[in-house]
């Protein structure tokens, strides 16, 4: 450290060793958020540039991946949600109505037997995920795909852990419903 700032050599080492290994994961997250390669490229570039600019506020050897995901998520909110192609958000009414139905059926569960989905392709599942409101999609990506802990997710998206749990539960149920409807419509009970 020199005058409270990382010297260039240290900066470059942290950037290469701690930040760059997460490039693919960040790109994947960015792509699912923006649904567009160009926008995903821009978002990832902005994320790494911001990370480099503010590298002094990153504590070496801590959770670089979560730190980068938070920068990317904030960048997405600030830049992309303002554009006209604003992705669907989780509205309060959606949450309330979904919460209500969820409460009623707490001890029941969706008919989600494995064989129903055996023939389903990755494209179809990815499409169903991408159609979810962005807050639901985000939480599934962070938990199931990136395997962040609830605590990390809470920090990345600035919500309490209790909200992480409930939002994740609702997001999964909505996705299950979508996939079940799709599978039944397309007759996936028989293997393709």
């Amino acid at each position, binding site marked *: 450290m020199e005058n409270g700032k990382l010297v*260039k050599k240290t900066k470059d080492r942290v*950037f290469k060793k701690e930040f*760059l290994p997460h*490039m*693919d994961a*960040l*790109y*994947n997250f960015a*792509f*699912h958020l923006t649904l567009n390669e160009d926008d*995903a*490229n821009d978002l*990832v*570039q902005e994320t*790494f*540039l911001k990370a*480099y*600019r503010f590298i002094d506020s990153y504590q070496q050897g801590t959770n670089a991946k979560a730190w980068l995901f938070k920068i990317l998520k904030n960048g997405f909110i600030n830049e992309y949600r303002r554009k006209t192609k604003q992705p669907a958000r989780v509205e309060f009414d959606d949450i309330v109505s979904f919460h209500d139905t969820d409460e009623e059926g*707490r*001890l029941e*569960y969706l008919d*989600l*037997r*494995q064989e129903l*989905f055996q023939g*389903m*392709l*990755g*494209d179809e*599942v*990815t499409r169903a*995920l991408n159609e979810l409101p962005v807050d639901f999609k985000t939480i*599934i990506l962070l*938990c*199931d*795909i990136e*395997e962040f*802990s*609830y605590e990390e997710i809470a920090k990345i998206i600035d919500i309490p852990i209790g909200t992480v*749990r409930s939002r*994740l*539960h609702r997001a*999964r149920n909505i*996705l*299950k419903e979508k996939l079940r409807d799709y599978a039944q419509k397309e007759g996936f009970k028989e293997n393709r």
Partner: protein
Amino acid sequence: MDQQLPKHDCRNFVEKVFLVLDGELPEQERNLFIKDIERCKGCLEHYHIEKTFKEFLVAKIERKECTEKLKQDILMQVKAEDKKS
């Protein structure tokens, strides 16, 4: 072993199933949860459904990788940023 477990309550299952599947509980608590639900056919079946669904998502959701060009662009931008400062 069952005698050491409290009476099975399906509400406990609902409360903890995702914590278990998402790796949020310590191993000992997770093991107790599994032993507990093994006494209830409905909970056990539901557990396997949720577990299968999570594995299904992990296996099926497409993962995009960034291109070599993007990697190079980022490195160049960082270099340029360095020169500015």
